[in-house]
Every structure is written in structure tokens, then in C-alpha cells.
């Protein structure tokens, strides 16, 4: 039986892990290969490496890093962040990643999805969607997004209070944001999900901007809306704080995988603990 996947996500800058991974006994918590090895041992199902390196010249470091990871761990991983064109995708895949995740460029040039899916196969192409709830009296606005230029605000700006995000009824709409959550696009997230699936994306990495960082659980309504709209796998992201949150998203939606960062990095819970909990709830996992 195909199992639900648990995926730790690592932010990478200039070839180093950022956003403090705090593993006990790890000599160099900034070394992506060392961190990846730990997750490999814990039998994480996949890893996602999100490159937040700003400068173009340093992108070479990313390719070298992907090669290093592929040489040291024998598990699947996805690389995303700043992927610009077909050459980027080819370089990352050839260096040893299973999948490449595209976000901003896919919104700007949707043919990047169709062209890369044709060349490398749908199974290699993940479209990351950062979505944020739109209040009911407000339709998705046309993006006039200003770059703040500050990567620390990634997925952080414009977040409305959670209670208003959660109070919405059946008229819920979510807007797609790009440039690391800084720029609204005016695109409806459900429509965009349908479109990327049609263009040949093999998977959607769905991040709820409203829930990201809250540790209050995944955005069930958003995840449900997207998974019901497409028949490609969906990774739910944003809000995981404890094992119960994973069982909630897997039992209430047809999400295929759950992604999280801090709860694993700070060893609040191990991947294994989350999986053991899921198994106790009869959700299929690989253990």
C-alpha cells in the first residue's frame, strides 16, 4: 500500500542550513549533508531543500550541494527556491534530486511547467503554491506587490490574524503569492492548482501562509479544497506542531504527504514519533 509521507524541510542559504537546526550531538548543524544523514536514519520519507540564496552566482553552490547530498544519502529529495528555467531544472535533476519545485517562475511563465514536464516527466516537477485566505468581501486583488528585499519576511508579511482566517464559511477563497510570500498575484489558489495539474505538474507543495509558523495544525480547509480539485499528489505544509496535526490532515483531506520544519529540527518530535502516532491511528506509514 502506498503510504503517507512525512517530509522534513530544510532552508538552505549559500550551501548551508539556516533557520537553526538544533540536533543534539550534531557537530555542524549548518551542514546540509549531516542534517540529511540524520533524517535518513530516522527514515524520513523524503526531504525538501529550499534554497533561499539570493544571488545568481551562488547558485552553483546549490548544484554542488545537491551532488553532495545525492552521494551521501540514499533517499528521495526535492530541491526548490529560485528555480528560473529549464537549465536550472536539468542541472538540479542531473545532480541527483528526484524532483524540482518551481513557484514564482511557474506563475510568471506557466509554460515552464508544461515544457519541463515534457522533458523530464511530470513526476520530476513539483509546483509550490503559497496561498493566503482572502476575506469574503474582497476578491483576489491584482498583484502590485512590492519586493521588501528582506528574505526574513518570507511567508511572514501581510498575515492577517488567525481568528479571522479561521472564521470563514463556504465562500473561502485563497490567493496565490509569489516571491517567497511577498507578492500577491490575484490568482485563485484552487484555479491555479487545477491549471498546474493540467500543465503537467506531478505534485503540488501547498503552503498555507495563514498557518505557517503557528504550530496550530495544517490548514484543513485549504488542503481539502486543493486536494479535491486535482488528481495529482499534494504535500500539505504550514502549521504542523505535533503528531496529531499530521493525523488530522491525513484523515480529513486526501493529502499525500505532510511537510514540517521546526518541530523536527528542534527535536520536539522525531519523524519516527510522528509515524508511530499515525500508525496507531491506522494511517498507512512506512515504519
Amino acid at each position, binding site marked *: 500500500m502506498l503510504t503517507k509521507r512525512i517530509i522534513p524541510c530544510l532552508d538552505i542559504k549559500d550551501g548551508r542550513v539556516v533557520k537553526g537546526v538544533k540536533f543534539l550531538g550534531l557537530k555542524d548543524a549548518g551542514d546540509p549533508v549531516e542534517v540529511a544523514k540524520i533524517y535518513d536514519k530516522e527514515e524520513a520519507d523524503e526531504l525538501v531543500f529550499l534554497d533561499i540564496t539570493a544571488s545568481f552566482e551562488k547558485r552553483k553552490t546549490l548544484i554542488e550541494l545537491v551532488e553532495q547530498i545525492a552521494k551521501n544519502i540514499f533517499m528521495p529529495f526535492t530541491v526548490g527556491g529560485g528555480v528560473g528555467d529549464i537549465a536550472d531544472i536539468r542541472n538540479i535533476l542531473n*545532480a541527483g534530486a528526484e524532483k524540482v519545485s518551481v513557484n514564482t517562475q511557474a506563475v510568471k511563465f506557466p509554460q515552464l511547467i508544461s515544457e519541463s514536464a515534457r522533458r523530464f516527466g511530470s*513526476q520530476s516537477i513539483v509546483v509550490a503554491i503559497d496561498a493566503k485566505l482572502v476575506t469574503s468581501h474582497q476578491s483576489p486583488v491584482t498583484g502590485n506587490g512590492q519586493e521588501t528585499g528582506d528574505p526574513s519576511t518570507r511567508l511572514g508579511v501581510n498575515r492577517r490574524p488567525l481568528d479571522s482566517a479561521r472564521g470563514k464559511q463556504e465562500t473561502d477563497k485563497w490567493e496565490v503569492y509569489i516571491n517567497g510570500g511577498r507578492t500577491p498575484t490575484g490568482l485563485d489558489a484552487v484555479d491555479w492548482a487545477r491549471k498546474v495539474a493540467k500543465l503537467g505538474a506531478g505534485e503540488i507543495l501547498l503552503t498555507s501562509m495563514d498557518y505557517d509558523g503557528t504550530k496550530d495544525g495544517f490548514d484543513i480547509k485549504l488542503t481539502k479544497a486543493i486536494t479535491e480539485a486535482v488528481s495529482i*499528489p499534494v504535500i500539505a505544509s504550514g502549521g504542523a506542531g505535533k503528531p496529531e496535526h499530521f493525523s488530522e490532515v491525513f484523515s480529513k483531506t486526501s493529502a499525500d504527504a505532510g511537510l514540517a520544519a521546526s518541530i523536527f529540527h528542534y527535536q520536539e518530535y522525531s519523524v519516527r514519533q510522528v509515524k508511530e502516532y499515525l500508525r496507531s491511528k491506522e494511517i498507512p506509514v512506512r515504519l
Partner: protein
Amino acid sequence: MIAIIDYGMGNIHSVNKALQVSGAKTLITNKAEDIKSCDKAVLPGVGAFDDAVLELKKQNLIEPILEHVRNGKPFLGICLGMQLLFDESAEAKKEKGLGILKGKVKKFKHSHDLKVPHMGWNQLKIIGACPLLRDVPENSFVYFCHSYYPDPLDKGVIAALTNYGQDFAAIVWKEKIFGMQFHPEKSQSIGLKMMENFVNLC
């Protein structure tokens, strides 16, 4: 020495490293004479079927592969490399496969209950005594990432099945020819076990 055939279709590093940690000496190559001089060969591959066949043709690799197989030397196709062993693929618009094994490559029919691609960890139902599955337990999990699967004409070549909406051939095996639809090089210790079994084949 194991030849890893590098024809420009996807990830060579992981396969190479997985074979090396399994004790093999490897040679990444796209040269006919290298394939000839090696006692085993691996055909990896990610991407489109047509593009893969065109690359093999362009780099004059088809005849060396067929010769390797004719000489009874162990050969392992992984993912697209497995699909290429067959006659044809639903994905292909122009090109035929290598025809080393009889059968077609088909596409999963997606539905509300069956998402395509088939992506993630799924289990093997072992059939027969394939030497690559020595010490691999029934129901072992391996990593899949594909939309197409091979449907061998001769069901006798199926060494392991996986269920995804239906049973499909996850491993095929005929004499010294092996194919894996999943990624052994990405399937952690159990995948490495299979690689090791391939390395130790006589």
C-alpha cells in the same frame, strides 16, 4: 567493473554512489567500448521515453546495449531505464523501445481515488526467487516516482508486483536482465541491499 550508461537522461550520481557503497567498481560512460569491456551494465533514466531513445540512438548506444545483453552479461534498467527494455510505450509518440523484453509500457489511469504520478513508498510482493531479492523481505517498501508502468507480455518475467489501483510489475527479471520501476538508489537500506545483490551477481 559496472558500466553506468550516461546518455544525458537524469541522475547518474546516486546510482553510481549506491553501487560503489555496495562494493562495486563503476565506470560512468557513453562509449561503446567501455560497455563492451565491463562485465555488468546499468541503464538509469528519468525523463521522456522518446527523448531517451533519441539520445541512445544519437550516441550509438543501442547496439552496445543489445550486444551486452546477447552476451549474457548482467544488465539492470532503473525506472525509465527499465521501461526502455520493452517494445513500446504509451508515452512515446515516435520511438520504439529496445525490445529486449516483450510488452508495452502503459500509463496509470488517474481518478479521484488514484493520483498520478504514483509517488512515494510502496510495497513489493515478491514472486519467485530473483537473485536481486536475496535477503529482501516480503512487503519491503521502496520508493516510486512514475506515471507509466511496464506490462510484460510474458508474465513469467515478473519478479515482484506492487499494487497501485492494480498490480503492476515493479521488478522484472529474465536470465541476467533485470528492471526496477522504483529507485533502488533512493530506497535507503533495502534499495542498497538490492544493489549489493546486483554487484555480487556472477
